[in-house]
């Protein structure tokens, strides 16, 4: 073993990081090399001298007081920050939410007439859309249209198409306000002679 390697292994030996095989090799080298023996002894004395040096110093009271004062200031700043966040959560956020609701409500109110107009347009288009489904329906739609043109007033009598088939016509006041019904289409296209199984009386045998 050369002296350079032996000196690197000495450092590892002082750290107890040298394996047993290398330790034996180092010991063999030290046994025959006086310079490395001296180096090992000097390393030992240096380690002792380092260990004897004080690792602590007396901290002046002023340093402790100044540190604790700075930390108290930091803690107070943290508290202030948290208070500001809490204020934001408790007061400002609900206030903003309320303002938002008010704005949305105001916008909704302003846009309401336009919505109603759209609904009316849809209702006007609906009879025309179903006009081609059956001839009977067309006749009913025409009758209804004439009724609507009359300004929702009660017509003097059934239209000619319905007068020809009186079994299809029941003159109820409700029918004059059909446009306002949600299921206007379903009701309007239902004839009295429709046989719906649910309406059949239950037979016992």
């Amino acid at each position: 073993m050369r002296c350079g390697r032996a000196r690197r292994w000495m450092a590892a030996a002082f750290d107890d990081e040298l394996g047993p095989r290398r330790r034996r090799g180092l010991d063999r080298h030290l046994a025959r090399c006086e310079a490395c023996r001296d180096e090992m002894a000097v390393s030992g004395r240096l380690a002792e001298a380092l260990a004897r040096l004080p690792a602590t110093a007396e901290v002046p009271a002023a340093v402790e007081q100044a540190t604790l004062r700075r930390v108290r200031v930091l803690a107070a700043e943290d508290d202030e920050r948290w208070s500001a966040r809490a204020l934001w959560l408790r007061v400002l956020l609900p206030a903003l939410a309320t303002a938002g609701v008010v704005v949305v409500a105001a916008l909704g109110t302003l846009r309401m007439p336009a919505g109603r107009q759209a609904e009316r347009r849809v209702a006007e288009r609906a009879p025309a859309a179903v006009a081609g489904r059956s001839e009977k329906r067309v006749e009913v739609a025409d009758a209804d249209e004439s009724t609507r043109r009359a300004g929702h007033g009660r017509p003097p009598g059934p239209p000619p198409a319905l007068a020809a088939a009186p079994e299809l016509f029941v003159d109820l006041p409700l029918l004059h306000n059909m446009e306002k019904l949600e299921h206007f289409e379903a009701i309007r296209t239902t004839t009295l002679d429709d046989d719906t199984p649910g309406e059949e009386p239950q037979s016992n045998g």
Partner: protein
Amino acid sequence: MDREPGPPAPESVVVAPVSVDPDVALMLRVQAGEQSAFQDLFQKYSPRILQYARRMLASDARAEELTQDVFVQVFRFRARYRPESRFSTWIFTIATNLCLNELRRPERQLRVDLWDDRQDDGRREGPSLADPAAVVPEEGASSRELARRLDAAIRRLPEKQRAALLLSRMDGLAYQDVAGALGCSEGAVKALVFRATQSLKAALREFL
């Protein structure tokens, strides 16, 4: 570039459960807002941090300021501390970062140069470092002389060698923890310590 004072790098994390390291429990109490726990940590660690800073900076006044800064950083970054790492590793990492930042400040270079010119006159900035005679009164004059020269030789080491030597030999940090504090590998730390001890042996051969 300044090193960011803060928690050690993740690779330096050592498992240090509360049962093994009582300082972890203290630090967790600091995190919970207990100022008395912070005071306990200060009383326990400030003497070591102050001595480390004195040896790193060779200035008592600046070492005292830096000790304050270290504990203020501990408090400021308390939320970042994770109990998986030893508290001593964490605080010495902060101290090392602050010391290295301080040593690399341009105005510091000027101050040290002026101070170095006066060294031969036996004049020092501020009061003397630890008085070896007060610690080992039974030792003879040669031992006191060795301790004084050893302190002086440590201060003359390059900053990273000095930090590696002090952290591993004086403050008892494992090489892995020193590596985390210095931001280098464990092998690099061993090399730094080896070179530092070789320099010290060369400087103090006649006293060893």
